[in-house]
């Protein structure tokens, strides 16, 4: 079997390198060997690839025949007797901050054997160039700070809760006749949420959610403008029909671990002193709404630096309560 194997060590975590490789739309920005790649990275998928070793672009349609997310992607072409190829992108973690990228290809069949003296000297240097470009891109992303807005309540520093703060009024965004609710307690369990089920202000990656005892929540003005938002979620969200802002969400299921609590957005209050967010929930969900996964290390680092431990679920304490509650029902 004829083979080209090239390798490079990269000062960035393996997952950043993998996510750059899986960001097919951006290949044109950095990859001269593979300037275009489309299809879905799924086992068995036929990809459309512009492959340009030596600067000579050719369109190929290889099939993905091995895929282990974050570690290995192999694709290849097959023409019986004439051509067999297996091109592998392999990412091997060396530590939490360092990895090795292997860019390798096996060649079989008549064509590569006849043309090897023309293939190998052209392909190998370009595989190495691709590796260097990948290294530069990954290391730059790993070094960069994530600076886009996470949420206005934390973007310019977190304001602490005020002692003995006992609630306030929340109003929707309508200028005329806003829906108003009065909350007569300080918020409990305040956190950022990456979930798309939770309302996010314009331009923010996260929602800011607080829980309060339902008995402390009263609708005090323009209740007729509130309507139930259609959702399969067991949590019922009530939003203003006009401006769309959700004013409260209720847990109607008595079996729910957090039955008795309502969800509110305290940023809708002009009163200051509410409990600030204490952790970040459902962080990976922001990838679903468009944040590139290779930027998520930057998002999590910034959250951690603000003291908001990132979780892809709720906080460990809340998850334990939910699991214990569902265990006790069995």
């Amino acid at each position: 079997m004829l083979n080209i194997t090239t390798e490079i060590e990269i000062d960035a975590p393996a997952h950043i390198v993998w996510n750059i490789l899986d960001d097919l739309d951006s290949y044109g920005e950095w990859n001269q060997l593979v300037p275009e790649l489309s299809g879905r990275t799924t086992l068995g998928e036929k990809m459309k690839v512009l492959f340009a070793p030596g600067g000579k672009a050719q369109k190929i349609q290889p099939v993905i025949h091995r895929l282990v997310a974050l570690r290995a992607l192999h694709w290849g072409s097959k023409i019986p007797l004439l051509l067999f190829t297996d091109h592998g992108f392999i990412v091997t973690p060396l530590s939490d901050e360092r990895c090795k990228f292997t860019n390798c290809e096996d060649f079989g069949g008549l064509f590569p054997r006849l043309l090897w003296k023309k293939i190998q000297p052209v392909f190998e240097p370009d595989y190495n160039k691709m590796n260097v470009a990948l290294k530069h891109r990954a290391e730059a992303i790993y070094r960069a700070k994530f600076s886009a807005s996470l949420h206005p309540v934390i973007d310019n520093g977190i304001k602490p809760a005020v002692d003995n703060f006992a609630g306030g009024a929340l109003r929707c965004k309508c200028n005329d006749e806003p829906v108003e609710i009065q909350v007569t307690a300080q918020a409990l369990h305040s956190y950022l949420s990456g979930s798309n089920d939770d309302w996010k202000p314009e331009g923010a990656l996260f929602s800011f959610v607080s829980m309060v005892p339902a008995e402390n929540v009263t609708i005090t003005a323009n209740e007729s403008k509130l309507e139930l938002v259609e959702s399969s979620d067991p949590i019922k969200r009530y939003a203003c029909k006009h401006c769309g802002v959700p004013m409260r969400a209720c847990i109607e299921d008595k079996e729910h671990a957090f039955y008795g609590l309502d969800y509110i957005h305290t940023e809708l209050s002009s009163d200051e002193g509410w409990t600030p967010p204490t952790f970040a929930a459902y962080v990976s969900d922001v990838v679903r709404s468009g944040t590139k996964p290779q930027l998520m290390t930057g998002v999590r680092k910034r959250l951690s630096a603000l003291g908001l431990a990132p979780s892809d679920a709720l906080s460990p304490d809340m998850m334990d309560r939910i699991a214990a509650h569902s265990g006790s029902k069995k």
Partner: protein
Amino acid sequence: MAITDLHPSIKMSESAADFSSGELTCKCSENPVEVVISGKVAHNHLCGCSACWKPEGVLFSQIAVVAKDQLRVSKNENKLKIVNENAAIQRHACKDCGVHMVGKVTDPDHHYFGIDFVHLELSKEGAAKIEFAGYVSSLLEGGLEIGQMGEVRKTLVENGIPCYDTMSPEIMDVIAYHKRKIA
């Protein structure tokens, strides 16, 4: 609490050779099912969920993945039975000893399509490094008391094993990205 209380075959040494090929054998003394792995395994981790197989009396399951073209049932395949046909990961268990030999994903749209799940403690070669512990809070659904969770989490972290109530952030990001791709 000692780390071996969480799982007896955890290899904590950084230098533990990465598992790259070997055979898994079920617990039957006669005609055991045998699975051959012919490639590098990845993402070896502990799992607190109740669906994964674990040895008797152990809190966590230990589970890794391998590319599905690099796994083959080599002996006594007829003894394998799917535990739950409706689960996204179909766990193939030995009918006689109950050990799960491989978990397979058949839906091409599923985020885990392309990999098989294996328990490396079933091999002579032993384990690979544990990268993280997932679904830790799910231990409570299996009967652990809430007061014990602090110690479980502390023991894991002190031994260099990050703990999560889902999969690791890297894997959760890949799953989220996959969901966006198929949306």
